[in-house]
């Protein structure tokens, strides 16, 4: 009891320190609003990347449609806030959870048939689902005019702030850490390592695959809600195949099944993208997407196992390894 209280105090202190220092830096003008927004985006991306890390890194389910779940969360949360939420912080929190819930429900419906597929076939099925969802978002205005369809969704209030993104990032890290080091986590990892062996040991592989998949997609849903209220504008192209690839690249670069690596890679990726925009001379910004693939290929050639390997930050380690 005393220890769990101490843990809680430690987490709250970490949260206050992180969010407080960023807010302070922003308020004193050390960090300009543009970079604060980039930082918020990086946190949002980190949350959804942790989701894919659970799905692909820990459970071993190859998913190429992660951005679709981001989109489901984003549109759900934005719709709820636009129709009933207004400016209320409490309702914002609820809307984010509803976005995560919607993504989880749809993940469940998709997972029921799709998780029977293995490896690359699952990848193709999720890729297909991603493209179908993009078509649905594109035509969304024909059943709910508020969603805007291919013209994009406007009229969303900017609700996402530093305290919110840091809060959800910390919560997602804690959930992943505690799940992975529980019996659920053991089961999930054993499926990744060898599904047949896991089944022989009495693990209900389908059920645990579903747990991993739904949990990861729920993270994407919450991240989507935060994303919607960060830029106050949604467009179906924010959730296309390339965005799924972005998140996949982050997870692979960070190292599959490595929370610290994925966390660092999320921030590194976003700041690299934006940093190159600043560093490259005007008129050469298109070179960004020529340099990044080269960097990607070279990284894969030199370190195919991801940048971090198997090392974790101390606060993300399991008790067994402490």
């Amino acid at each position, binding site marked *: 009891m005393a220890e769990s209280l101490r843990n809680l105090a430690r987490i709250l202190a970490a949260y206050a320190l992180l969010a407080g220092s960023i807010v302070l830096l922003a308020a004193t003008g050390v960090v300009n609003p543009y970079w604060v927004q980039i930082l918020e985006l990086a946190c949002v991306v980190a949350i959804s990347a942790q989701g894919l890390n659970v799905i692909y890194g820990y459970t071993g389910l190859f998913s190429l449609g992660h951005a679709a779940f981001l989109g489901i969360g984003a549109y759900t949360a934005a719709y709820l806030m636009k129709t009933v939420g207004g400016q209320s912080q409490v309702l914002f929190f609820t809307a984010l959870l509803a976005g995560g819930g919607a993504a989880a429900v749809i993940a469940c419906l998709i997972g029921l048939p799709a998780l029977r597929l293995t490896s690359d076939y699952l990848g193709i099925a999720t890729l297909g689902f991603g493209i179908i969802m993009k*078509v649905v978002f594109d035509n969304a205005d024909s059943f709910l005019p508020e969603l805007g369809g291919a013209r994009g969704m406007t009229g969303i209030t900017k609700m996402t702030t530093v305290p919110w993104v840091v809060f959800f990032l910390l919560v997602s890290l804690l959930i992943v850490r505690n799940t992975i080091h529980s019996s659920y986590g053991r089961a999930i990892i054993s499926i990744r390592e060898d599904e047949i062996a896991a089944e022989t040991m009495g693990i209900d592989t389908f059920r645990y695959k579903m747990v991993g998949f739904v949990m990861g997609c729920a993270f994407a849903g919450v991240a989507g809600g935060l994303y919607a209220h960060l830029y106050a504008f949604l467009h179906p192209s924010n959730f296309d195949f390339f965005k799924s690839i972005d998140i996949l690249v982050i997870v692979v670069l960070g190292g599959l099944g490595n929370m610290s690596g994925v966390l660092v890679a999320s921030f590194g990726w976003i700041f690299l993208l934006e940093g190159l925009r600043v560093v490259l001379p005007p008129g050469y910004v298109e*070179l960004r997407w020529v340099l990044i693939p080269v960097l990607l290929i070279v990284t894969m050639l030199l370190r195919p196992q991801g940048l971090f390997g198997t090392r974790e930050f101390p606060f993300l380690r399991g008790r067994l390894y402490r």
Partner: protein
Amino acid sequence: MEYFAQQVINGLQLGFVYALIALGYTMVYGIVRLINFAHGDVFMIGAFIGFYTIERYHLPLALVFLSAVAGCTVLAVLIEQLAYRPLRHAPKIASLITAIGVSLFLEYFTSLRQVFGPNFYSFPRPFPVVIWEVGGILVTNIQAVILVVTVLCLLFLQFIVFRTKMGRGMRAVSYDYVTAGLMGVNVNRVISFTFGLGAALAGVGGVLYGIAYPQVNTFMGFMPGLKAFTAAVLGGIGNIPGAVLGALIMGQSETMVSAYLSSTYRDGIAFVILILVLLWKPTGILGAPRAEKV
């Protein structure tokens, strides 16, 4: 009824082009188990080679095809040797990410102003278009060219795979990579050859696509590539007739949705069919189930 028949013809035109791309995906996947995302961009390069050889140099059609084939083959073999070969024994995801990297590189590098440029270019018609009316259905000579060229390519492919030593090597490597190597098959050369062969077909496909849908852009390879790969999975990946069958289904479904429903749903339908087929038969329509080794 005539409208329907007309759509079938249009669907065939699209399906044949998809088939030429899908063959490259299915052969490469059959041998190295890699979704070669860069294949769609090789197809784009083929279309651009066609664009330049017709627009700038006014080459005859046969030479246009030949230069597209040569250019794409060299490109694909280079990609294989520089990017994929060093990763042959790394985790599979590393090759996949590299393939995505190569794809993005080809798209964005060629869209630089110094290379092809980011604009849409209208593809010149290499011959005047003739329209025939057959029982109320309009058939163009473009469709005839696509049909003849695709069938020739398929016959050529069939010949290579089943009647040559290299073809036997390809079949052996796709059946069992390690054992084929032990039996004296030069695995590296077979893999390079497969990449080259697939790219040659994509090059032909690129030129045909440019003739049929006369517009080229450096990002044009993405969607056809994705759909061609889906077609290959639909037919049973690694299976050559399957890829053609899948591509024809893909072409038909897409054309029918555009004709009878709305073209905004066009990109979605192919994947709905794919998911349904995968649920019913996870290895694709003509794919043989693989024995699982424990």
